[in-house]
């Protein structure tokens, strides 16, 4: 795979949100304003970059058996870093992202990229992969947030839009609006790609929910290893280890 395609695949062909439907919680929750969406996108990209780079650097050191606790520690540490930095230097965004900032830890996109890509590839490739996936995530958030902010509040990046400001449809800023806008954008993606994009399940394997959502059986992940490895190879001994970490 060329460097360029590693970088760009995350943006369109394997867009984490619009094609693979990963990490939907923040996508729905923080997209009431375009500014928040960008903030969330940048914070997630930062964590993604950090975790991909670290996992890739340590890929020959981390034993296969204990890789899950290692990834969890790495990802949650980078999330905490992001949280501290945002709180110190961008407090308004910190406030509006609220609990979804620490919850970057459990964003399946990050885990999926670490497990599927960074654990098997060189650092530079992993960084490019993270940049691509992060950009794709940010773009998707930005698109959804723009629609919701313009229709729901009649503003864009806080700038008032003349006619819409007085005629805003406030349900778009509330919970149901998030579902509706995401549905409409996914339908548009389906229409444009004639269903081709929605068929690609390549990354679904990285989502721990895939085992149960049934998609996985159709498409094993890039390594050809079924996703079951995620849970089945954690032994008692690992538990004791993570116990001791506490």
């Amino acid at each position: 795979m060329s460097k360029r395609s590693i970088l760009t695949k995350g943006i369109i062909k394997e867009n984490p949100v619009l094609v693979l439907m990963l990490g939907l919680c923040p996508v729905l929750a923080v997209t009431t304003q375009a500014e928040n969406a960008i903030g969330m996108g940048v914070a997630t990209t930062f964590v993604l970059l950090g975790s991909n780079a670290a996992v890739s650097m340590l890929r020959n050191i981390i034993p296969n058996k204990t890789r899950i606790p290692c990834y969890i520690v790495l990802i949650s540490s980078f999330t905490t870093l992001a949280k501290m930095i945002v709180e110190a230097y961008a407090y308004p965004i910190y406030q509006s992202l609220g609990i979804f900032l620490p919850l970057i830890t459990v964003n399946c996109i990050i885990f999926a990229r670490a497990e599927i890509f960074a654990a098997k590839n060189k650092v530079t490739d992993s960084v490019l992969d993270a940049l691509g996936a992060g950009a794709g995530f940010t773009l998707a958030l930005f698109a959804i947030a723009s629609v919701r902010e313009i229709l729901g509040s009649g503003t864009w990046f806080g700038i008032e839009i003349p006619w819409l400001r007085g005629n805003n449809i406030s349900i778009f800023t509330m919970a149901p609006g998030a579902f509706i806008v995401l549905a409409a954008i996914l339908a548009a993606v389906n229409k444009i790609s004639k269903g081709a994009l929605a068929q690609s399940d390549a990354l679904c394997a990285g989502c721990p929910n895939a085992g149960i959502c049934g998609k996985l059986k159709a498409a094993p992940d890039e390594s050809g290893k079924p996703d079951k490895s995620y849970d089945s190879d954690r032994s008692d001994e690992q538990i004791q280890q993570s116990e001791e970490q506490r």
Partner: protein
Amino acid sequence: MEFDIKQIIIIIMSAAFVNNYVLRQFLGVCPFLGVSKDIKSSVGMGFSVTFVMIMASAVTWPIQRYLLDPSGLEFMQTVVFILIIATLVQLVEITLKKFAPPIHASLGIFLPLIVTNCAVLGLTISNINNEYSFIMAIAAALGAGLGFLLAMLLFTGIRQELANANPPDSFKGMPITLISAAILSIAFFAFEGVIENIFGK
């Protein structure tokens, strides 16, 4: 804070209905959309999440209060909590496997998925942010878990009907599922008034 039964009930009701984790706060959307295809999985997932939420709240609350707060390590919260949840889920799985194989057989496959369920981590963090007492934290966990179960059950019913629906081609699959979730989410607005009127006066 003294034990206030009315406040406990309000916390449970508000976590389960008004601030439903899935439909109003968007926590745990992935399993909600992924697992809600048949009743059996929904019930299994719902009960597993409720159980883990209560356990996780019961463990993380004292750790935050008696370990992280006094030693000025609040910044380690996210790291510590996620590790606790991951460990806890594994311990629960092993315990069930050993002592209650029938329950393990029906809930076992859902447990590992809960580690990356943001509803559990979200709940434990918001318990701390809201400065809940221990009992309030457990109540919030119970409410949030039951609310998740309720949302899963309702949505499973809708999805089974959806299978017979014939939406426009581009809306097939996920888009129409999300539209139904939106309608269900609108329905949950009604609970606001219900709880206001029961407990408001």
